[in-house]
């Protein structure tokens, strides 16, 4: 739940069901969680699976400290980070991934994979992800491949001069 809430802070989505706590509902459409962030984080290839339990624990410790510092009451029904409001989650993630935070490597890695789950569906073959309507690729309008699973764009050029060349252009096409 904690890591879902983290991924949802990076690419937010709409609640999956009314009582959804980890997904805050800060944006319309599916976000990183529905896109498969947890699945990607847990793939052996990503190399971070072994650290996830620790990261979740640390995130909740940071959330508890944040709540104390900012006078937020956390209900005890869910982990501390999940209990934070979306804006507070965002502020905390901004601090944890900031240039000067000593643990930033771990938080940046979590953010990278959360993002990749949405933008590239890196836990799936891209063709399959697209065929199944993967929410991130669909949101971006990533075009579908040809029937053989490869991309080709036969129309690709405006096909006419659109600027003057630099006056020092040489025969090879570079500058002098």
């Amino acid at each position, binding site marked *: 739940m904690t890591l879902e809430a983290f991924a949802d*802070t990076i*690419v*937010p989505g709409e609640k999956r069901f009314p009582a959804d706590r980890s997904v805050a509902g800060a*944006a319309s*459409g599916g*976000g990183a969680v529905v896109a498969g962030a947890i699945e990607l984080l847990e793939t052996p*290839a*990503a*190399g*971070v699976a072994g650290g996830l339990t620790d990261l979740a624990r640390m995130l909740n410790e940071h959330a508890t400290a944040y709540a104390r510092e900012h006078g937020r009451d956390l209900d005890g029904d869910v982990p501390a980070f999940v209990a934070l409001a979306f804006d507070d989650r*965002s502020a905390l993630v*901004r601090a944890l*991934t900031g*240039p000067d935070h000593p643990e930033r*490597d771990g938080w*940046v*890695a979590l*953010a*990278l994979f959360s*993002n*990749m789950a*949405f*933008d*590239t*569906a*890196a836990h799936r*073959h*891209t*063709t399959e992800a697209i065929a199944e309507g993967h929410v*991130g*690729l669909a*949101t*971006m*309008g*990533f*075009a579908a491949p040809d029937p053989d*699973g*490869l*991309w*080709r*764009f036969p*129309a*690709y*050029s*405006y*096909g*006419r001069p*659109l*600027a*003057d*060349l*630099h*006056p020092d*252009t*040489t025969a*090879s*096409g*570079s*500058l*002098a």
Partner: protein
Amino acid sequence: MTEPAGESFAVEQTDVLVVGSGFGGAITAYHLAAGGARVVVLERGPWLRSDEFEHDFMLGSSYTRIFDFVVGDGMALLGGNCVGGGSVVYFAAMPRVPSFVFERKGSIGRRMWPATIDRAALDPWYDRVEQALPVSRNDWNTVTYAGGLFAAACARAGHTANPVPAAVDNTLCTNCNWMMAGCRFDAKRSLLLNYLPGAIANGAEIRPLHEVQRIARTDDGGYRVHYNVIHDDDYRLTNGSGAIDAKIVVLAAGAGATPVILQRSEAELGAMPHAVGRYFSGNGERLNTAVIDEDKARDLLGVSRPDGSAFRANQVGKGPCVASWDRLDGSLPEYSRFSLEQLYFPPGFGTILAQVPGPDGPTWFGPEKKELLRRWQSWLTTFTMSEDDNEGEFGAPPPTGNAFRISQQMLGRGPIRYRPTENTLRGWAESDAQVKEIMERDGLATVLPWSNDVVGAYTVHPLASCRIGDDPATSALDDRHELRGHPGIFVTDGSAVPCALTVNPALTIAALAERAVPGIVRAARQRGVAVSYGASLP
């Protein structure tokens, strides 16, 4: 410390041992093999055939097998990790470096390039590489929608814009924009199509998944190169190790790896020149993402596509096709000169660092960012190559390779440290302002630079970490690319380039490697290797 030659039956012998199979390695391997030397190339990454280059973002596909992403402290490096090196993953824009760059002084108060090298001296070597790959000029019919739109925006803002010379065969190209996963149509002229097959035809042996760790001396004046064999899926694992003795070593592991190998070898080889692992340049790189207003593109620029849209073509193309070179003006002060190139990065690398205005300033994540992603098809990315200050330095080497590997493939944490100086920051600010001036004019687009908060600055063009020069205090190599104090070790990759180039560097790295070959051949002959120089191009 010296290691006795022939100490064990297990140690193989060769004339020339080449480390890395990118531009610096493939070109030297070809010429030395063609000249008659026994050549072995050790390459840490796998060897893929064209039909193994996949259109797939899944971890474990060619996209992650052949790619390397090392996050350091303040700088992240992107590069190749396969036979063919960066040429397999690159975007193949191949301009020559403008003349003024060779006169740069940077912060050392003297010309950074050796006196023997300027543009005129390099031109014949550029010619050779352009012929061998080959490189051809894009024209307006092969320029993509993104390149065309950028050109039109430049023209409207009073700037020139040029189709960029590229190592792409446009008759084979499908404009799929999967260049970073390797080109499965053989349209991109990587080293797998010219110098490397040429080297193999002349007897060179290429060994993939062999990662060089360190170099030691043998008591006959040669070198012993120690390597680990890397697991073919999980690059964190090692399948044994070995060593090869050679009379000549050519280091071409790339600017992120060559200095690390030398640092790790220092205990056995003796003191390294001061400049090994210093003066690193990221080629002054900077990215901006413009989100195009489709209606304005039609009204202001008069562009339209067969399907009726004006642009919506971020995904279509083949990397950079058009650059604006107005700021490559030698009369401007150093650090104020840069080129702007239209570019495409696939999702993942190309999306995470893009920023949007947020409640507390620009942000790279959250709800506003997601709104930006909805308009991804209308993104147009511009790439700045400016003059940075050679301010990168490598810390202590990791136990193996050039990074602690985190993921099975691709992602690692490396020892480089980079803090941009005021000079570098000023160049970036001036280029950001020019991108804004061009792209935001009359509401054509909204533009923000990529964030440097997440992985620091970033570069696909690591340079200068082991550079040539005339001054022993600030260059690791003499002007023949030989490592000072260690005769018989040559460095021919991007680390030898003295400074940021203001344009894409691969053609220059390649031309410098071509130029270095006659000197390496001479050194090999002095060491008793029967090799000559003068083979035709592959």
